């Protein structure tokens, strides 16, 4: 029966979400080529958390690995969603930025080096507020510098999602890869509900959350470039594909006129249903998109 076939496929699937952060990063490299930089035993950790009574993590929740993807030099930066919600502090931010800057320097020396950023993050770490904000600004500058030379690929697998300032960083990426379980958005559901009331957004309505922030909707509305299953080989394959593809002719974030046009055509006087919005958004200005 077809049902049995499906179950076997499901059971044998190598979940990416169930991997820990280090394994996630490693799984994206060509086998045996990866090595970790500034690992936990280097103990470069947040000096600010202990002052506020919070136990730090030895790698500050940021794993950096260098190696080869599709035969090409690449750096992977992976955020640990379980540590302080994957939030960006001074140290984790600096680790990300420096990794991208070194990749940029390698490109300038004639060694093509791509970057993959695994985003499981709520954005700025509130305990390191200003430093975290500065780190995200620096990270965005580093993405902009690197993406001229080589693709910067953001992967949000789940289940933390990618929110706050880091969603802006994802917006600058050459390519965004998501699973159905992942979410991507500036303000998270709780924040919207708190600011605008439950009539605006009911953050207990999981179907609504995924209909708006979920990977499927983000892909359908062109804000993500690939929708993948929670399947390690499939995800690694998608990443290899984008590394091989190289820098896109036009970055999404450079298409200001296209997106401004789409927003202007949208009737904001009424509440849009996510499905209805999807149909409108993708036909809206689709000719321009083909440019």
């Amino acid at each position: 029966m077809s049902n049995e076939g499906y179950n076997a496929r499901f059971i044998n699937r190598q979940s990416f979400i169930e991997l820990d952060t280090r394994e996630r990063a490693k799984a994206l490299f060509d086998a045996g080529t990866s090595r970790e930089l500034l690992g936990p035993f280097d103990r470069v950790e947040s000096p600010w958390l202990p002052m506020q009574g919070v136990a730090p993590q030895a790698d500050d929740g940021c794993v950096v690995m260098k190696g080869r993807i599709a035969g090409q030099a690449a750096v992977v930066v992976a955020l640990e969603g379980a540590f302080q919600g994957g939030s960006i502090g001074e140290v984790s931010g600096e680790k990300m930025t420096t990794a991208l800057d070194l990749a940029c320097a390698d490109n300038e020396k004639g060694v093509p080096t791509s970057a993959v950023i695994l985003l499981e993050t709520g954005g700025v770490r509130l305990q390191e507020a200003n430093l975290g904000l500065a780190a995200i600004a620096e990270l965005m500058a580093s993405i902009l510098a690197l993406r001229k030379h080589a693709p910067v690929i953001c992967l949000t697998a789940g289940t933390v999602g990618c929110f706050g300032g880091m969603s802006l960083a994802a917006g600058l990426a050459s390519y965004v890869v998501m699973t159905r379980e992942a979410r991507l958005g500036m303000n998270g559901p709780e924040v919207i509900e708190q600011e605008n009331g439950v009539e605006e957004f009911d953050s207990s309505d999981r179907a609504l959350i995924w209909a708006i922030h979920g990977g499927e909707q983000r892909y359908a509305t062109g804000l993500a470039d690939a929708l993948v299953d929670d399947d390690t080989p499939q995800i690694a394959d998608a990443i290899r594909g984008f590394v091989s593809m190289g820098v896109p002719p036009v970055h999404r974030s450079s298409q200001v006129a296209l997106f401004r046009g789409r927003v202007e055509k949208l009737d904001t006087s009424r509440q849009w249903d996510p499905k209805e919005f999807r149909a409108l958004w993708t036909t809206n200005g689709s000719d321009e998109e083909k440019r």
Partner: protein
Amino acid sequence: MEQIEFNYPAKRKVPKRAHVGVVGSGDLEVLLEPAEGEVAHVSIRTSVDGFLDTWKAVLDRFFTKYDGVVRIQINDAGATPGNVQLRLEQALEVSEQ
């Protein structure tokens, strides 16, 4: 946050270091490294204050069976004693692989 230190007598050399776990709610991170001498040193940083006796009970029990000369650092975000025990055993397993 509380800082707790323990020392236990030890004699066996440990082949390699191990890092397991994450400082996430109800979990902890263990960094285990081979050391020199005849003592195992454990250094704990925990976000939850006031559980010195519980930490001592868990580690006393762990070191009745374990005699590796190691330096163990634990960063804890409120793990239960059972969880601490499992993470220590996981670190031990990785270090002996």
